[in-house]
């Protein structure tokens, strides 16, 4: 008996049993459907977001009765009319959109050389240093990072204290638009570098050498060889930075101090300050639409870049 047991270990028995169960539940003739079964949990989980969007759409069509604080049972588009006509929302939307564009441009300007140096350097030590310097802040939340900026730039912050030592009156460095932009660029840099780096790795270094040997200086090599070939990376990085900064909440809230609200802050206020869930839902829906249109536009024009998942590489 003993000999038989060692010849057929417990692990095999367990595996046999599992295989048996699997074969009973999912016979071989279902094999063609296996990938769909594997995708099902993810599809269901993301389905929660779709359900959420449906709830938002439903709420956006109900108006708040300010005398009873009840939401109407019948649908109307009054919220959308308000969202589109109230000047406050227009200001906020404009502010967020312009910020997103500036932040995207700024982030790409700094992320490209960072990614390029990280990919092209011959020193493994420098590469590791650049990677660690990138990942450490990436893994520290927005709130903590914004808090760090408050310590540096705040009214009693380090910069103002240091300026005070040399007799310069304190300046207001936070709670303004540039502070929010700056905080966003810092927040977005790791995302952008991580989207750009794979695209740069894919460019053979010999191409740059070839351009150089044909007489192009490094600026022309960048413009005519590196930048065009890095396009998938720029698309990926651009889309991520654009949408994340357009819809950010924490940086405008902490570094803007309530005076520099973005769309997300306006939505939050509608839900938790004004308690007008309908109008808040309307704004949320419009933001989702705006974000999707921007992403869709970029994808339609340039393809999915480094954002593509799975086998097909656009």
């Amino acid at each position, binding site marked *: 008996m003993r000999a038989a047991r060692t010849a057929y270990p417990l692990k095999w028995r367990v595996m046999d049993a599992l295989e048996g169960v699997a074969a009973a539940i999912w016979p071989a003739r279902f094999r063609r459907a296996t*990938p769909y079964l594997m995708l099902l949990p*993810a599809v269901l989980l993301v389905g929660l977001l779709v359900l959420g969007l449906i709830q*938002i759409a439903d709420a956006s069509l109900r108006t708040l009765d300010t005398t009873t604080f009840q939401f109407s049972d019948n649908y109307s588009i009054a919220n959308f009319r308000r969202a589109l006509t109230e000047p406050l929302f227009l200001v906020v939307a404009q502010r967020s959109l312009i910020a997103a564009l500036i932040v995207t441009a700024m982030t790409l300007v700094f992320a490209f*050389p960072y990614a390029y140096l990280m990919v092209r350097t011959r020193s493994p030590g420098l590469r590791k240093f650049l990677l660690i310097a990138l990942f450490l802040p990436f893994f520290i939340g927005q709130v903590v990072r914004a808090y*760090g900026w408050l310590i540096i730039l705040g009214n009693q912050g380090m910069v103002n204290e240091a300026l005070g030592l040399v007799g310069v009156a304190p300046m207001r460095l936070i709670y303004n638009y540039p502070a929010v932009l700056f905080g966003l660029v810092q927040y977005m840099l790791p995302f952008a570098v991580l989207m750009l780096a794979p695209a740069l790795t894919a460019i053979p270094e010999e191409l740059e*050498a070839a351009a150089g040997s044909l007489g192009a200086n490094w600026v022309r090599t960048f413009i005519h060889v590196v930048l065009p070939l890095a396009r998938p990376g720029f698309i990926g990085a651009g889309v991520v930075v654009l*949408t994340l900064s357009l*819809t950010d*909440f924490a940086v405008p809230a902490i570094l803007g101090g309530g005076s520099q609200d973005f769309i*997300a802050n306006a939505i939050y206020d509608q839900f938790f300050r004004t308690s007008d869930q309908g109008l808040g839902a309307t704004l949320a829906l419009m933001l989702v639409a705006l974000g999707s249109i921007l992403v869709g536009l970029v994808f339609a024009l340039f393809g999915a870049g480094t954002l593509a998942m799975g086998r097909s590489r656009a």
Partner: protein
Amino acid sequence: MSGSRSKSIVLWTLVTIALVTLSAPTIVVLGASFTGGNIITFPPDGLSLRWYARISQASDLRNAFLRTLQVATICTIVAIPVGTLAGIALAKYAVRFEKTIQIYLLLPFTIPLIGSGIGLMLIFGKAGILGQLWPVGIACCVINLPFMIWAVTASATGLDPDLELAAANCGAPPLQVFFSVTLPAVMPGVITGSLLMFILALNEFLVSLLLVDARIVTLPVLIYNSIRSIITPDLAAISVVFIACSAVAVFLLDRLVGLDIFLKSK
């Protein structure tokens, strides 16, 4: 890297600015947490660990941190099987409607966080599960799921399908092929993905803010709520917890799979 002197000057100038910008908040928070004074000043009023002693006594902070760990754990436990299976399916099989499924699975990224958060808040509210911790974990999992799928597909594309066929040819039934060939091949992706999921859930702020109430507040939300008043070093000392977690995650990622995998072209 090759090129002229002007190229390295331009590159290094931009990279240095980026490096300073990236690191400044971390360094300053670390420094401020060791200050001896009551408020943060420059130059600092000597070194002390008093703020650490103070936060180690505060039970609300400790509880908030434990809750945050719980949320991150739930998020990761759910994400590992879901993301791994989806990632392998997308990388290995010619799925019908592949483009549509890809776009659908990218929804967590294309829907703004405030939209996802409010949507989840509304449906969790209807289901009557708002005010518990596990829905927050699920929410963090949903919004970051593409990271997990990405990490897995990236390593699954390196898997030669012939290996699985060879295993099957040698008589391995489907589950054994999966556990002895497919899964080990995508393991680096699974590790990367789960570390990302854990650390992102640990830091998740906006969705937490929407889904928690005063009884189950998570640490990032607690820090945010305390920020508005005057800047005191105890907040810096708590923030160091996040810096430490981030350092551990970077270390693990480097040790287990190597940070270089993020540089690989797909």
